[in-house]
């Protein structure tokens, strides 16, 4: 959203009607919600003074994700991520953070990859594993936050 001024972005604004008939109009694999979260992911960035952090995935196997949370009064008041990976990985990361934003930790702990997939309106079968990443990172960041509290002097 912040980059709508950029030159190359203008290309997206063109009428998307394809010049040759494409019954599937646009992309077969991903639905419009996924595409939107991929092209304009929410909560991208880092939190310098994060209360919880997680790094998951292995880039040599295809994807990696970093996730930061800021917690106040048991609520996730800020959440940011960075992701190396396929469109599925980016979109699910975006959606996972969107769902978690503002949640009480007790509720956030209940979030599953199914919630992410459902919120996205489904993702292709061969991309299901991506949906795990956002949630795994979220849970790991929450655990990290909890551990830091325990360790606090």
């Amino acid at each position, binding site marked *: 959203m912040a980059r709508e001024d950029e030159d190359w972005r203008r*290309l997206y604004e*063109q009428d998307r009607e394809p010049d040759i008939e494409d019954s599937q109009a646009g992309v077969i694999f991903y639905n419009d919600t996924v595409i939107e979260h991929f092209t304009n992911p929410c909560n991208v960035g880092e939190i310098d003074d994060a209360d919880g952090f997680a790094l998951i995935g292995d880039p040599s196997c295809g994807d990696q994700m970093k996730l930061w949370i800021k917690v106040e009064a048991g609520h996730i008041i800020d959440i940011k991520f960075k992701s190396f990976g396929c469109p599925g990985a980016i979109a699910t990361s975006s959606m996972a953070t969107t769902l978690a934003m503002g949640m009480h930790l007790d509720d956030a702990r209940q979030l599953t990859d199914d919630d992410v997939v459902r919120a996205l309106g489904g993702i292709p079968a061969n991309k299901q594993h991506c949906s795990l990443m956002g949630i795994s990172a979220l849970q790991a960041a929450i655990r990290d936050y909890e551990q830091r509290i325990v360790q606090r002097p």
Partner: protein
Amino acid sequence: MNKRTTIYLDHNATTPLCPEAREAMLPFIDGLYGNPSSYHHVGRQARSAVEAARRTIAEIFGCSPAEAVFTAGGTEANNLALRGAAAALKDRGRHIITSAIEHHSVLKTAEALGRDGFDITFLPVDAQGVVAPQAAADAIRPDTILISVMHANNETGAVQPVEVIGGAARQRGIAFHTDAVQAFGKIPQGAVFEYADMVTVTAHKAYGPRGAGALLVRRGTPLVPLMTGGHHEQGLRPGTENVAAIGGFAAAAEQAVAKLASESARIAALRDRFEALLLQAISNIAINSRGAPRVPNTSNVCFAGIESESVLLHLDLLGICASAGSACTTGEPEPSHVLRALGLSSVQAQGAVRFSLGRATTVEQIDTVAAALAGIVKKLREVSSL
């Protein structure tokens, strides 16, 4: 520009049909439906067309018509070459040499022969993706029966020293096969039997139709057919001939040869412009096999820190067609075996996108794609955790 127009930079995956091929095919779709094996005039028309196409292909490659065996495509021709020669020569030896960067239709076939009792040497490539001829010569053993090295690589465009490797093979009396699918129509090939015993080509990578390819087989090359049936194609490939596709193949091949010099100069200039623009606009990129002799149309670019499918989807949303590694691996996350053979890490290989230019490619398209990529890469790098 109110409508998304397709910019097709995926000519190594497949090409649109050229008008000449279309014209050659239509009569056989519309009325000339004969089976070339039939006795009557309807069949003879079909047979005439197939034999005329065979003469055209033979002339292009400087061989005799009887040495051109039509298949359904490149994959079948490669399988026929490898499996056929292995079966024919298995009593003479069990060692086969190929390279680590072959198309899956050669690579997986070599692996399958490896499981069937053959001993396979996969020649490495240097950092530019080129097989060292000396490595090929050194790999030869007394029981080596077949060497198969592709003419041009489909992912990087790197041209392999097939003349030298083929020469070494011939000197030792070893059959040499080259998969020329990506070289045909892009670089001059001359009289292929001067260095090879078997050559694979396919129509649809050179503005011909799907459904026709050929294995050129030098007279006297031992070969067992892959399939059995009727006596078609000199006994090497049974099945009712796909007359329309074969006719389209010949027409496209003629055009490809006629246009080769002018088109390859034009396309190489576009490719060079494209790469110069990218290098100028985007930091941390690497152009694979840039230091190797390459076919003029192929540019394989690694964008550090981002994953290729994300680039492809952004491009696709803009109507731009490119590919990651070879087209065949869509749906599998495994990084390209070709780029790994060049020495790239798995992470690097995952950031590789192949742009393959073609006859319809224009300067404007190149400039549009380069500009789009600059934006896409910037955006994805902002998201990237690497």
